[in-house]
């Protein structure tokens, strides 16, 4: 049962964040991703999913479960193991008017298709004026003994390549809303979905069409210190913040790394005067380094303390759980750094 892949939706509705009276359902982060794919595929016949084992099997993490049955083999395509071809043919399909969503089985494997992403997709619009509307779904992150090839947080690779949008939601509602927005975007979007959140994090997700903008969001209010985080680290940061008195520590969830919501970062830091930036990624040139540089450059006179960073040291992510925990930022370490800054 294949669909013609020709019908574009009539008109895009205005970006409407979930309002209190909307229908919501509680679901996991992973279910929210599937929900977004299903909604967008129902809405727009040009959307197709492709990747390794995404068809009848439903994907290595089951993110595409049920889609093959509903949309058929043309729109939910199993591919050979060939990341350059998955990404490269998606670029071609996008140029020819489709809206491909590629699943890279683990974000780490994107390295084998990197050239198509950074040299072909990323530079296309600036060079030629041709749009490449495609999404790369990248299951990323550590915390479950995945070892050096199944645990990376490669977002900084993409941030450094002009022409790619990079987003990393932390909640089920944002996962659905931002994936839907990514599919409707006219550019290549790297969508980093944190594997450790897949089944552990549940939340209320609006039913039906749901869009979230590529902006940051304050997830916890505070007056004395801002913790800036994204992806899985948002949950650790919120837990660390809860160890202090209510109203002291603010947590800003970046949600989008490109574009980076500079206004939201500066507004929060100017109010609190102190900032701790947390990355699960390796420290050097990480997203957090960009945030730190921004704050130092544009909010220096509002600061009451040094800009502090917490990130993974510059080593691959080790396999053995004790070793892995030794390199990944933990709630304790975040709380400790927050305490030092508050006392500064």
């Amino acid at each position, binding site marked *: 049962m294949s669909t013609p892949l020709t019908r574009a939706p009539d008109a895009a509705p205005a970006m409407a964040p979930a309002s209190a009276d909307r229908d919501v359902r509680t679901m996991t982060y992973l279910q929210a991703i599937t929900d977004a794919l299903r909604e967008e595929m129902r809405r727009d016949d040009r959307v197709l999913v492709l990747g390794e084992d995404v068809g009848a099997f439903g994907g290595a993490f089951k993110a595409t479960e049920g889609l093959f049955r509903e949309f058929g083999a043309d729109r939910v395509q199993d591919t050979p193991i060939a990341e350059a071809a998955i990404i*490269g*043919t998606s670029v*071609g399909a996008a*140029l*020819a008017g489709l809206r491909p969503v590629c699943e890279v089985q683990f974000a780490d494997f994107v390295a084998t298709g990197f050239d*198509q992403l950074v040299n072909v997709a990323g530079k296309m619009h600036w*060079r*030629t004026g*041709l749009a490449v509307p495609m999404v790369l779904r990248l299951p990323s992150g550590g915390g479950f003994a995945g070892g050096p090839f199944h645990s990376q947080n490669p977002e900084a690779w993409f941030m450094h390549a002009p022409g790619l949008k990079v987003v990393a939601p932390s909640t089920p509602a944002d996962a659905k809303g931002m994936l839907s927005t990514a599919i409707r975007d006219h550019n290549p979007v790297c969508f980093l979905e944190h594997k450790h959140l897949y089944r552990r994090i549940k939340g209320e997700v609006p039913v039906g069409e749901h869009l979230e903008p590529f902006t940051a969001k304050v997830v916890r209010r505070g007056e004395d210190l801002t913790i800036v985080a994204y992806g899985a680290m948002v949950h650790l940061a919120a837990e660390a913040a809860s160890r202090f008195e209510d109203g002291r520590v603010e947590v800003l969830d970046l949600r989008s790394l490109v574009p980076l919501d500079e206004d939201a970062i500066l507004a929060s830091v100017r109010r609190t005067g102190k900032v701790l930036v947390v990355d699960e990624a390796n420290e050097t040139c990480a997203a957090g380094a960009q945030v730190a540089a921004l704050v130092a450059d544009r909010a220096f006179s509002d600061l009451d303390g040094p800009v502090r960073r917490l990130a993974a040291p510059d080593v691959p992510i080790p396999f053995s759980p004790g070793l892995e925990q030794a390199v990944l930022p933990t709630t304790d370490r975040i709380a400790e750094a927050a305490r030092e800054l508050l006392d500064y």
Partner: protein
Amino acid sequence: MLVEDPHRTTRERPVGHPTLTRADREALLGFMVGMRTFEERGVALYKQGRTPGSFYDGHGQEAIPVGAAFAMGPDDVICSPLIRDLGAHLVRGTDLTEIIRHHLGRDNRLSRGREGNVHFGDPAKGIVAMVSMLPDMFVVAVGMAMAFRLRGERRVALTFFGDGATSPGAWHEAMNFAGLRKEPVVIVCENNGLAYSTPTSAQFAVSPADRAAAYGMPGVVVDGNDVEAMFAATHAARERALRGDGPTLIEARTMRMHGHGSHDDARYVDPAVLDAWRERDPIATYAARLQGDGVDVDALRAAVLDRLDAAVDAALATPLPDPASATDGLFATEEPGPLGRGDAPWSGFAGPGDAGGPGRPAGAGDAGTGR
């Protein structure tokens, strides 16, 4: 020695020659002369220091892009012409003045000065610009073809690359995808004996055409210096793709007659080999044949030159791009529209029945230099 491939060649021959009228033949010659004349001027402009960066030409290979592109209908796409393929642009109708502006780094519609040398396409003519990394655009062409197949459209993607591009892993991935899914892609491999200074004998053990079978598609060896043979082979490959039978790899055998680019004196090439190939120059041999049929080749050359002179003058009078424009347009902000239709000058497209629709009637007057 540099060009004689020691390996078996595929014996599958293109079936017959689809009809070419005398006007078609004049057009084929005109496009080839246009490419050569343009590139000779391009080398001169480069050596005069008017062209920033680098310049590449396809001297001696004109029959390949011209013959292949001539077999394309208006809705087909080219993804992408590479460094020896200016003739494909001329056939499809990319504006000549814009091309020269692009080479000179002047403000232009094709690249706005952001790109140089052969890195340009013309979306309005269904042509996607190449990237340097070989053979990335082959992979992209397979994806475009996939979209055509999924939507049930009667159109193909034509891709070009050299012998050197058949070694990277991306080539294997694209061949495998194309063969596996029977994508309507027409694959033209220009085997000119060299990848920069490296002869094919140092590149692969099995010729590209012979490798095609391993991916489930025919590999056809064609005399790359014979424009009508190129046209016929590409026409057959297109027909096959439109029937749903999948891709064909056409290995066009030729010789790179100049250096890799204008900066390269190619002293690593045996002059005796070049002398032998010069005898088989695709333009000289075809011109002699058409002259025998009564075509006024001199008038054709003069017309091409006039158009080129006018285009160069217009390009040289064009300002450089505004420096402030360098950072705009990184992201698309609007729903993209479809690619435009290319010129399809072959008379075979003028009739009913093909995906065609009206192609531009090709005559010596405007052939060869685009519009």
